[in-house]
């Protein structure tokens, strides 16, 4: 009997290879999913942002050479475009975005306006200097100062840096990372699906829910903190930025093949309802609440904070469904430690 052991193991492996998946059953292919994410969502988002950042940089250079009302207007327009494009790429910091430290250098706010306007050179690479650069710094220099023209060299410098960084991240994806990303189709904690979804949830929780809404609304402090909202100097942009980000998150979630699709392929139901629908309804209700808010979230917090808190609650409800229910249903690891289980 013991001598039959190797044969038994061979049989065990052998008989698998002869069965083909039944056509009627739902199989979900992680490799296809990753190709779709990389080629149809992530790389295009980086291309868009990179182009918008380049256009912004060009407008900033124009303004630096010829500071007129018209060139300032064009720059401010490009700033809005670039900031909106940023919202669409921010969920995808897996890989090159992370290694370039794109998010912390492009969108750390509030800006330290004193250090920003002090007349000294800024070493942008330093971790301590993330709050004197990026889009929030431009927001201040373009909309929050008496005369932007006085700061036009710095504006061009910062816009140039955003463009450089976005270009680096984009070429990271184009020169090799895309293939590694698609190839890592397993289900370990370091495989691409797990990393992408973890990074996406991190963004949803920290940047969308807390950064744009919870922190200014005072959820994490004793008092509301409107001065911590996004794009406070522009004064009429933060709602658009939020809605753009929320839409980007929903698009990633619903894109086919994607997470909603994956849940449906596994027929994941909770209390008689598809989990995918429950989560999508969460995106929709957050969007509905936000649409009714003031164009400037800081203003909304100062005027009436309650709707902001309602928006936070709507976002939070989906954090639970995404972080607990979705991750569990798709067997996605929450941490990067590949430890043993039993």
């Amino acid at each position, binding site marked *: *009997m*013991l001598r*039959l*052991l190797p044969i*038994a*193991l061979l049989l*065990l*492996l052998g008989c*698998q*290879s002869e*069965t*083909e*998946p*039944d056509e009627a*059953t*739902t*199989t*979900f*292919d*992680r*490799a296809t999913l990753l190709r779709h994410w990389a080629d149809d969502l992530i790389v295009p988002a980086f291309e868009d942002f990179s182009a918008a950042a380049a256009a912004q940089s060009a407008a900033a250079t124009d303004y630096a050479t010829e500071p007129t009302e018209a060139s300032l207007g064009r720059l401010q327009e490009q700033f809005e475009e670039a900031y909106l494009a940023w919202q669409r790429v921010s969920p995808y910091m897996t890989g090159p975005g992370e290694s370039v430290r794109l998010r912390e250098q492009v969108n750390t706010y509030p800006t330290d306006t004193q250090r920003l306007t002090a007349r000294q050179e800024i070493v942008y690479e330093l971790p301590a200097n993330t709050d004197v650069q990026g889009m929030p710094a431009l927001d201040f220099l373009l909309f929050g100062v008496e005369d932007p023209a006085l700061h036009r060299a710095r504006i061009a410098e910062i816009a140039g840096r955003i463009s450089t960084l976005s270009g680096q991240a984009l070429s990271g994806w184009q020169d090799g990372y895309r293939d590694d990303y698609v190839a890592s*189709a*397993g*289900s*370990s904690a370091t495989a691409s699906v797990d990393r992408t979804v973890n990074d996406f949830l991190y963004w949803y929780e920290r940047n969308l829910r807390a950064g744009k809404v919870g922190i200014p609304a005072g*959820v*994490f*402090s*004793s008092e509301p903190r409107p001065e911590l909202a996004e794009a406070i100097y522009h004064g009429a942009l933060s709602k658009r930025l939020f809605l753009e980000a929320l839409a980007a998150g929903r698009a990633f979630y619903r894109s086919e093949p994607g997470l909603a699709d994956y849940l449906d*392929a*596994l027929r994941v139901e*909770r*209390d008689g309802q598809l*989990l995918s629908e429950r989560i999508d309804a969460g995106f929709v209700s957050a969007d509905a609440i936000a649409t009714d808010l003031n164009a400037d979230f800081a203003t909304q917090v100062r005027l009436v904070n309650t709707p902001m808190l309602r928006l936070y609650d709507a976002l939070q409800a989906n*954090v*639970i*469904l995404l*972080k*607990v*229910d979705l*991750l*569990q*249903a*798709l*067997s*996605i690891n*929450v*941490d*990067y*430690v*590949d*430890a*043993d*289980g*039993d």
Partner: protein
Amino acid sequence: MWTQTETSAAPLVVFRIGFGLMMLLGIVRFWVYGWIEKLYIWPQFFFSYRYFDWVKPLGDWTYLLFAVVGVAAACITVGYRYRLATAVFFLGFTYIELMDKTTYLNHYYFVSLMALLLFWIPIPAGIAAARGCRVNSVYINALRLFVAVVYFYAGVAKLNSDWLLDAQPLATWLPARAHLPLLGAWMQERWVHYAFAWGGALYDLVIPFLLLAPRTRHLGFVLVVVFHFLTWVLFPIGMFPWIMIVSALIFLEPATHAKILDRIAALLRAGRDTVATACAPVSPARRVAVAVVLAFHLLFPWRYLLHPGEVFWTENGYRFSWRVMLMEKAGMATFRVEDAATGDRVVVNNREFLTAFQEKQMATQPDFLLEFGHFLADHYRSRGMADPRVYVDSYVALNGRLSTRYVDPELDLTEISPDAPPCTWLLPFEDTIYGF
């Protein structure tokens, strides 16, 4: 089983070599993977077992602790100062497992308890000495009973409605393995989940008897190898399959062990002398100790019956009871600290104090939540907060159910004693799981 028959010591020697080798590999693997650093050096907070909160990692000395345990395992393998080595191994390994309950695994408990049992079992040194060396068969039977109970209890624990009627948690886990070669294509099939669930339960319940009965023990051993090979392919369970396969060798007849020893001796070109005398001390005290360890092994898993509430929900008595791969529980917990004196409040970023792994383990286990809550109160008090109150907003999803609130978010955790059973302060489980 407790009769005074004498038998060849070969099975014990093979067991000693196999166990020691597995432990040595386990320690080396843990070290090489960088887990000592990740799990015991980097974290700044460690979750303690009740009454063992004095057991903490030793900073950089933790490496020395692992080295000592590794050397002890090597000594067990070759049989050098076996008894001392087993004592050092048991104490060192158990200390490691008590340092942070985040890392609890059933097979670590298996190793600790097994080491304690082995300490009382006389096993001759070397390889050649085993030939002709006789021991009381009680000791071999004790090891067999120990291993059989692990399987059987694991099988009994599977006799519940989630496992049998919903094929949970396998129905959650297996589809994620669809990318595996050969096996992958089946992993999203519903019937496969049921086949694995029922097959797994039946396997655990029947395998001890197949292994114990002389006529079926070879079949049983083949099944052990096939089953553990499968679990090794499907789940990230580290050394466990290999430890169980090596342990199951104890059920084979002495002649097979003698052959194994011959092979090893030939490999090592060791001497082929035989020792014809009884080579292990016969002591009634040892047999009493063996009986005590086995009685503990048999009874301790049932302590959950003393607590009301669903054991999957409260986890009161869940650990140390051979509930293996039995539930999929995920959660998240957001702590809020409020100063009752000033009304100031802070929402805690768990990752400021915990690793991702610790945070994940904490979210679903009441004793972790409570311990961390008490730690936060102390932490903020030392930071100058006059009267910190700690609240947790937490959600848990169990075996394919929708996530639900786990703890009342208005409950001040500082008011809860670490000895209070979780069922007294957790929100109730709004469902019923039938069976064990």
